[in-house]
């Protein structure tokens, strides 16, 4: 078995066995882990759009919010089973992203600003469409994750296992897309879009596909979050934090890698909640800014590439 496989098996053992066994009884730490991995999932979806689609989004809160509302409403009003509703939440977010297709003509900061505006439009819609969304009062008593075959997915360990599995599946999907011919063409499109178009690449379609996939992933995580916290209001579901935190996490962890954004989210969130918050209970986020600035200056490619580089150097170092 090569080193890569061994590290994958070890990571799986840690995630699926060690963490639940060692930390499962500590509800506070488990809730921090669940929140950080959820942010990591959004960061991964954000990085997919940026890394493959070449688009920097400040509007992922829109997909997160739409996914959470669609799933919550489907379970509450139509009695759709929670896991099916979560998938449909992702589909809802992907459908919502169709409204953003005109922004694909824009590039750089113009795209970022336009998609930010879309996020605000969805928040206003959720606030004003009171008959469906409950308006600013929000939705409460959203069904928790169910119990299946005697295992309670709504427990802290159950929630943890579900979000870990969702994010791992998304990472796998990301990896498959990146390794495909589509991924190769997408990588090429960033700096040479005309050159890809003249060899037959439909760049607009590929970018739209990445927008759909990224929106779907973010929507599913938003849906998970709604069933995890059992409450939803527009200012929370469409909060700008769902756009900015994943960006910070992805850049910190290494947005050009697949797992960097997830590792970045777990690291940043845990350090923020467990360390910074204890020193500066109010306004501790300022430390996050300093941490990100430090990482960008110290290792612009992010934490994961830095770790990998260090590991390679230590292995190649003469004995």
């Amino acid at each position: 078995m090569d080193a890569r496989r061994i590290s994958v098996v070890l990571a799986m053992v840690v995630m699926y066995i060690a963490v639940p066994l060692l930390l499962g009884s500590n509800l506070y730490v488990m809730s921090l882990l669940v929140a950080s991995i959820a942010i990591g999932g959004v960061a991964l979806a954000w990085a997919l759009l940026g890394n493959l689609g070449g688009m920097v989004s400040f509007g992922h809160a829109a997909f997160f919010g739409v996914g959470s509302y669609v799933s919550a409403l489907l379970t509450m009003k139509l009695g759709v089973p929670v896991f099916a509703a979560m998938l449909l939440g992702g589909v809802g977010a992907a459908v919502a992203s169709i409204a953003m297709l005109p922004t694909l003509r824009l590039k750089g900061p113009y795209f970022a600003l336009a998609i930010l505006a879309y996020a605000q439009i969805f928040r206003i819609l959720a606030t004003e469409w009171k008959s469906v969304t409950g308006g600013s009062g929000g939705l409460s008593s959203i069904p928790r994750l169910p119990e299946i075959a005697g295992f309670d997915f709504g427990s802290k360990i159950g929630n943890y296992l579900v979000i870990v599995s969702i994010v791992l599946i998304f990472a796998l999907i990301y990896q498959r897309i990146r390794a495909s011919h589509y991924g190769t063409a997408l990588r090429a499109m960033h700096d040479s879009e005309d050159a890809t178009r003249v060899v037959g690449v439909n760049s607009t379609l590929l970018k739209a596909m990445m927008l759909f996939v990224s929106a779907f992933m973010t929507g599913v995580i938003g849906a998970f979050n709604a069933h995890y916290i059992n409450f939803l209001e527009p200012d929370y579901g469409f909060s700008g934090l769902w756009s900015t935190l994943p960006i910070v996490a992805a850049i910190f962890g290494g947005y050009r890698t697949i797992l960097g954004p997830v590792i970045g989210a777990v690291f940043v969130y845990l350090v923020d909640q467990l360390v910074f918050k204890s020193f500066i209970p109010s306004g501790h986020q300022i430390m996050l800014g300093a941490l990100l600035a430090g990482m960008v200056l110290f290792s612009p490619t992010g934490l994961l590439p830095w770790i990998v580089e260090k590991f390679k150097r230590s292995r190649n170092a003469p004995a």
Partner: protein
Amino acid sequence: MLQLENVTVRFGGVTAVDNLTLSIGASEVTGLVGPNGAGKTTLFNAISGLVRPGAGRIVFNAVDVLNAPVYRRARLGLGRTFQVPQPLSRLTVRENLLVAQRFGTGSVNASRLDEILDFVGLTEKAGRDASSELALSELKALEVGKALATNPKLLLLDEVLAGLETTGKRRFMQMLKDMHAKFGVGILIIEHDIETISNLCKRVVVLNFGELIADGAPDEVFRDAEVIKSYTGAEHA
């Protein structure tokens, strides 16, 4: 194979291509010449779809492609290279050709890719980063290789020999001749060097200020008084 009917391209108040009507036959090797600013590259951009003409028709293999997007024209068999090479960045040389073949033809044929790599002389550089590890002549060869990988019926070559030293230019010119013979592809080539054009092409088309001013065999065209005037600004003695 390619018919341009009354094609006009304007950029604001400047008419870059003016009411141009031109026909290029299958498997022809045609030179497109003219002084700087004559509209040659703009015409290539209009044919390949990067620029949309304000008026006229562009028909390729009996398909009206005027409103067709760039990628569809490529899939129909319109290949092109750029004057300043544009390798697909972040990819290796082989991946450049792979993307072109996969999306230009709809499938991947590894042995055909190897054949093209060999033909353009990049087999040994196949694993190199295309945007940072190639010399100019290799970048030019990659431009041609990418276009060939899309299996074109007509190849638009934009100053593909520019910047090459004499030996490299001769070698490249031979490659273009061989390409025409081996792949049966038609070529429309922009080139400033009269000797190159005379050597490669049986037909030359001359543009000046976006207008067609001459069309014929190289030795006739290069003796044409209006063509000489367009280059020198003076009447031929």
